[in-house]
């Protein structure tokens, strides 16, 4: 489908549909036509547009003029999306700073004693970005599976074959989990818990150790090397207790504390078979 659209002139191709405001004419017209900010991918994109459309020298950017034009584009925007605004405003201040530095005698010199052009950093940034912008365009135009070329979606031959167990794939699992998170929406807050992973892990370990019967608390804590594992173990026990997965017994004040699995041993043994 998109073949027709995506094969359109390179300049247009990467713009999303709602953003195609620039026309070929706009490119060649030196009198800058109005442009909308959302047709750009950020301040560097805007600057490149200004520089390239006016055939300016990237190593010798007329900062005063460009700054003015850049600010004009920003001001034309009725309301700046706050998220976006930040990056654009930072560039605006960079430009204004460059403008003032251009008026001063060059003070900075490199190792060889050559004066450093204050615009060097910006020029380098623009060149680097322009490279990737172009590579992105090329990537977008490459024929792509599922858009330009297609492969076989079903494999009837595989139906009758007994297949081996699937291979582990961490990435696939993470992607799957992410989809779950997205799908369940509000449940997501229950999932910002990876920082507590060690506690959960420890909960599992404790449950396993308790599988064969009760254990003294000291016994459980004894082989925890260092403060952190100790704290995590205690937290895990507390959490298990709260969940009523374990029972904590203390027969007398300051007496030894015993942990018991909430489910009988024999039953637990069964579960594992």
């Amino acid at each position: 489908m998109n073949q027709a659209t995506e094969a359109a002139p390179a300049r247009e191709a990467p713009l999303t549909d709602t953003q195609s405001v620039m026309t070929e004419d706009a490119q060649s017209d030196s009198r800058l036509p109005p442009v909308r900010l959302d047709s750009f991918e950020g301040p560097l994109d805007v600057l490149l547009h200004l520089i390239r459309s006016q055939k300016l020298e990237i190593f010798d950017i007329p900062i005063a003029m460009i700054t003015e034009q850049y600010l004009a584009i920003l001001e034309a925007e009725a309301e700046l999306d706050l998220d976006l605004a930040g990056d654009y405003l930072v560039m605006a201040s960079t430009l204004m700073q460059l403008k003032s530095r251009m008026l001063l005698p060059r003070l900075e010199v490199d190792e060889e004693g050559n004066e450093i052009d204050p615009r060097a950093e910006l020029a380098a940034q623009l060149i680097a970005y322009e490279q990737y912008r172009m590579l992105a365009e090329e990537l977008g135009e490459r024929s792509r599976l599922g858009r330009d070329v297609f492969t076989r979606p079903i494999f009837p031959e595989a139906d009758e074959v007994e297949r081996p167990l699937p291979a582990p794939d961490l990435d696939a699992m993470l992607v799957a989990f992410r989809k779950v998170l997205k799908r369940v929406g509000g449940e997501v807050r229950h999932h910002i818990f990876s920082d507590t992973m060690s506690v959960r892990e420890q909960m599992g370990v404790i449950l396993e150790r308790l599988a064969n019967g009760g254990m003294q608390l000291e016994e459980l804590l004894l082989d925890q090397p260092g403060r952190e594992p100790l704290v995590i173990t205690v937290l895990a026990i507390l959490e298990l207790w709260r969940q009523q997965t374990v029972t904590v017994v203390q027969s007398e004040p300051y007496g030894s504390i015993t942990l018991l699995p909430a489910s009988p041993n024999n039953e637990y043994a069964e579960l594992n078979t």
Partner: protein
Amino acid sequence: MSKEAEMTDPTQLSQHIEALLLASDEPLSMKKLRGLLGEDISSADIRATISELESHYQNRGIRINTVAGGWQFRTAPEHAELIQQLWQVRTPRLSRSALETLAIIAYRQPATRGEIEALRGVKVSSNIIASLQERGWIKVLGRKEVPGRPHLYGTGRQFLIDFELNSLSDLPDSAQLMDEDEIQQIVAENQAELSESQDNAPPHQDDNSEQDPIYDNEQTSLQTETGNPEIIQADIGPAEQAS
């Protein structure tokens, strides 16, 4: 090869049919083909072209077969054994449901099946649980002391080995799987929803009737966290409240 080159190129129609038969996820019937190829191409043309294609492929490794009232590319039956070998050698990918189940267990352990179902929004088949268990990726850690005493699942040692993790804390932060903005947005949306329908517990949630308060607490503490994986700090908050 040279003979091939002498041959006239396959017609446009023939190319179209070949491409469609390969890309379709079901056998394509005459009716479907006509719909796709445009009304100006007659059934007779299509039939003639398919029969040309059928004979073109008749001595090749792949065929155009008539299946369920349509046509489809299939491997020639004499290569069945070879193909079987391919499928046996080729490790299949984990199904999406298996991956999701495993991921939820890994991140939420210990977790009951009910909790997994609540998250996934669909029933978790026993086959999936069994095959993950068989693999050693998950195991039963105990039972949850709630009505029905459901099994509590966690990941097994083999999970760490197969997924090349040193410990569970090597699993990427679930928070990093989603954007903070995204999370905030979802949370906001859902809090709005929740306040609207607070008492309407979803039907499949009876199993985890006690939505662990720890998670709610964690949310509070972790949201004030700034992505710093300081484990203890993040945890002491809720646990202290819990105790």
